[in-house]
Each structure stands twice: as C-alpha cells, then as structure tokens.
C-alpha cells in the first residue's frame, strides 16, 4: 500500500511528456454542478421561455394592451373566453381588453421590477456590506446600525406613504424598491467580507500598500460574487412578490400599464362572474415563474456554495 500502483507510476512518468491538462477553475466546477441539477436546468428553460414571451409575445397578437374590443363589451362572460378565432388567446378582461397583450405587458413590468431590485441590491448592498465589513470598528457599527434600523420598519407602509406623497409612478416604485432591496444583501456581504479580509492575499495586498478602496474593489468584491449571485437570484422573486402586493392593492402600476399583481387583483375581482381565465392566466404565470426562480436560486446555491449543502 505504501508503494504507488504500477499504473500510477507509469502515468507519473509520462506526465512530463504529455500536454498540460486544461485546468478547471472554480467557475467550471460550479457550472458542471449546476448542469447536473435537473430542476435548476428546467427552471432556466422555463425562465427563458417567460423572458421570450415578455419580449416578443406582443408580435403574435393584433391587440394592444389598452385597446378595447367593442364586440366584447357587455357580454364578456359569454364571449370573452380564450379563443383562437378572434385572436384573444387568453380571453379578454372585464372591460374588453385583450388579456394576452395585458399579460405580456404585465410580465414585462414584473420581470423588470425583479431585475432592477436585484441589481440595486447587488450594487448598493455589496458596496455597503463590503465597506462596513472591511473597515470594521466604529464605521462598521454605524453602517450596520443603519441597516438594522431600516429593517425594523415595516417598509410596505413607508413605501405606500412615499407613493401617496410623490404621485404613483413606475419610477417611484423603483426608488422605493431600491431603498429596501439592498438591506439583506448588505448583511450577507458583510458577513462574507469578515471571513475574507483575514486571508493571506488581502494581507499581501495590504503589505504592498494598496489603497483600501482598491483592496475592496479588486480583492474583496470578486470573492463575494458567488454568494452575492445566489442571493440576488433569490431576491428577484421576493421583489416580484413585493411589487405585485402593492399593485394588488391598486397602489402600484397605473392604468393602462399593468403587472402580475394588478392582473391577479383584476381577475380576483371578477371571479364571481364566471370568468376564470381572468384570474387563471396571470396566476399561472406568476406561480410558474416564481417556482422557476426559486429552483434556479437553489441550483445556483448548490453550485456556487457547495459547503452549504
């Protein structure tokens, strides 16, 4: 047992003469792990389909999201059901507008909200958390106290307050979402930074006299990236839920624009009138996309953060 096997010895002898094997980076490993996870890959496909639907779905229909089909008005419950002939694939809503076009438009807004929220959280949260964690001491305490303070406030109320004061608009919605989305990320980034900042390569950089800001940007942040990506993907669905909640209350997006929350609210309003498609289609899109996003996030976590399993 002490002696290596003959085959190994031969392999070692040949090793010098063979071409160097392509090294596998950590990212390659992560990719391999990710593609082994069937649920995550399937989710990726579903999400791609949803994105394609949101981007190009409008091309398939002659109806726009605000156009009223006057033939339908007054008899939506009898005539408005989904049908290929009159090209209302998902039926029409209670005022005779094409539900397919409205779903395309709502999907667009909802996805956008999720992505913008995640982006803000990645940029602001990572910067905030990495700075607080790396500098430490009093700065860290003050910065994290601010995060704690903001987290302890029921944000939905403050955001609705903001929306009431400064007129409801998509921009205001994005600002409001931006205000809260980075808080969790800042905590996560700080925690990771604390463990990274004592590593040798950071010490080496400090010894060479590299500026603090450069160390954070060049050495800390790239090493946070795996964890940050995982939490950003998990943040997308919660941002979508957040926006849908506000829109469900009628305080979010404004007519004729719509989002999943607003569509679900409209469908729920009409459910007593025997028009199940109005609730069904938006709900299905919402649930399927959220499922896919959660599974994608789980897959990414398993791939990028293997110690966490």
């Amino acid at each position, binding site marked *: 047992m002490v002696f290596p096997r003959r085959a190994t010895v031969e392999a070692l002898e040949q090793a010098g003469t063979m071409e160097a094997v392509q090294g596998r980076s950590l990212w390659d490993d992560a990719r391999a792990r990710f593609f082994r996870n069937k649920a995550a890959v399937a989710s990726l496909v579903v999400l791609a389909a949803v994105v394609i639907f949101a981007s190009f779905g409008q091309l398939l229909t002659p109806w726009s999201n605000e156009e009223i089909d006057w033939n339908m008005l007054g008899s939506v419950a009898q005539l408005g059901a989904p049908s290929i002939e009159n090209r209302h694939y998902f039926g029409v809503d209670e005022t005779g507008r094409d539900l397919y076009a409205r779903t395309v438009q709502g999907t667009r807004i909802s996805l956008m909200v999720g992505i913008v929220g995640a982006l803000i959280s990645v940029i602001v949260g990572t910067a905030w958390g990495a700075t607080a964690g790396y500098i430490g001491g009093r700065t860290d305490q003050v910065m994290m106290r601010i995060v704690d303070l903001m987290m*302890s*406030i*029921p*944000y939905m*109320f403050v955001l609705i307050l903001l929306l*009431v004061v400064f007129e409801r608009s998509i921009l205001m919605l994005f600002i409001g979402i931006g205000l809260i989305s980075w808080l969790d990320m800042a905590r996560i980034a700080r925690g990771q930074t604390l463990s990274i900042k004592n590593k040798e390569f950071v010490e080496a950089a400090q010894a060479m006299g590299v500026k603090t800001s450069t160390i954070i940007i060049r050495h800390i942040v790239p090493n946070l990236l795996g964890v940050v990506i995982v939490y950003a993907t998990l943040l997308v669905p919660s941002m979508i839920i957040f926006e849908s*909640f506000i829109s469900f*209350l009628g305080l979010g997006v404004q007519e004729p624009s719509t989002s999943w929350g607003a569509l679900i609210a409209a469908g729920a309003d009409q*459910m007593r009138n025997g028009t199940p498609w109005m609730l069904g289609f938006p709900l299905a899109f919402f649930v399927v996309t959220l*499922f896919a996003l959660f599974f994608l996030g789980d897959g990414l976590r398993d791939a990028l953060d293997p110690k966490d399993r």
Partner: protein
Amino acid sequence: MLSFIIKRLAVAVPTILALIVFSFLLMEAAPGSPFATERGVPPEVLANLEAKYGLDRPLIERMGIYIWNVVTQFDFGPSFKFKDRTVNDLIAQGFPVTLTYGFWSFVVAVVVGGTLGILAAVYHNTWLDYLAVGISVGAQVLPNFVMAPILVVVFTLWLGWLPGGGWRGGQWEYVILPVIALSTSYMASIARITRSSMLETLNAQFIRTARAKGLPMRRVIFRHALKPAMLPVISYLGPAFVGMITGSVLIDVFFSTGGIGQFFVNSALSRDYSVIMGITILIGSLTVLFNLVVDVAYAWIDPKIRY
C-alpha cells in the same frame, strides 16, 4: 439582563422618533392641500380650516405639537377626510379586528409550521419529510394575495363552505379564510427553518449522548433538541411579524374585514394624511417593540449570548 433591555430600548425609542419625524416631513413635502376639492375652496374658508387643524403655524412648532400629542397622549389628531372622527377612533375601530386574525395567523404559522418542521426532521427521508418539504416549497409561491383569491374560489364559490368576506364581529367562519391566507407562506418558511435547524441539532454530539444514555426519543426531542433548534425560528419571528402585519392590509382589503388595513388603503387613495401617518407610526412602533421582545427572548434562551 436589565441593562441589555435598557440598551435595546435606547435604540428602539430613537427609531420610533425617527419614524415619526420622517413621516411628518414626508407629509409636509406632499404637494396639494388635503382640503383641496374639485370646486376649489374660497381662501377665507381655507384659512379657517388651516387654523382649525393648526396648519398655519410654523413647521417646527407643528412637528413639536404633533410628536408631543402622539408620545404623551397617544393622540394622532383628527382625520382630514372623515370630518367628525379622529385617527384614534378609526384605529380603535379597526385594530381589534386586525389583532384578532393577526394573532390567530401568527399562532397557526408558528404551531403548524413548527410541528411540520420537527416531524420532517425527526422522520427524515420518510414520506412525512417529503410531504412537509413539498408543502413548504409549494407555499413559497403562494403569498397572501395569491392565496386569498384561490381560497375564495375553492371554499366559497365551488364548495360554498365559508363566506368569502365580511367580519360579523369575528364569528369563526369569517376568521378562517383570512387566517389561512395570511399564515400560509410564513408557515412554510417556519417549517423550512425548523426542519433544517432540527436536523442540524439532531446530529449534534449532545443529542448522541442523550440517546446513548438511553433516554426515550420523545424526551430527547422535547428536553434536549427543541430549545437549541428553535433559536433560528425565533430570529425569524421578527420578519414574520412585519410580513404579517403588512399582509393584514391586503387581507382587510380583499376580505373586507374592516381592520386598520382597510382604512390605510382608503386614506392612501384619498390622501387622508393624518390617518396614513397615524397608522404608519402605530405599526412601526409595534414592529420595533416586537423586535425588542424577540431580541430579549433570544438572549434569554441562547446561553451563548452575553449581555
């Protein structure tokens, strides 16, 4: 312990004050007068109205008066839209309703979620575990505004078992659907957190010791594993509380239960500033205080925390 509580209070009180000042200034920045109507109000009448509500005094003075009234007398002033009622009247009317189904939702989420999580961990990798995981994964995508319409479609429209809205003084059949709609997603989160932390605890050395000395499984779980396993769950209770109190707004609107959420949304739509402010401050203070209680409970249970 006392000094720990005082230290946390020293953070909580400024937080609440900051929230009051912030919402006050925000309302000041709001364009348009709350008395503006489509026909327009004559300037003399407007001046009288403003004098009545104290709007003609300088900003700092008004803020001082407002904070003083809120802090000392818990008085949020009159409503701008419901002329004959104060914000306190509205809160007194709506809050008991919110509290009733909010309390039951919290109990259901913690008890059902916790039980599910513990069962899943104890019977790891059996059908019970898979069922619990399945429920908690599925419920992730069923936030309250998705749950509420689905519940009404199934239990009111199809089966006709339960009323799809109203309150009737809190009779049990009017409480059930709001409670289920509000608690489902938090129940799922609690089940997930309990399961993973219980699994971790059950693999710990001290559990092995307890089992090795021949304790029955039930005693091992309840006496030894439960307390440390519940710590992550306790730290989740703060966010769960915030989520539920926010969700109550939606429940009120969807089920017309008449809680404070309904007043909140109505006043948000009609720009009734004093009501929005009052409710925001009330909810904010409740949340801060609840988080304080959770922190204290955590420190009390976890022997590792020194205060």
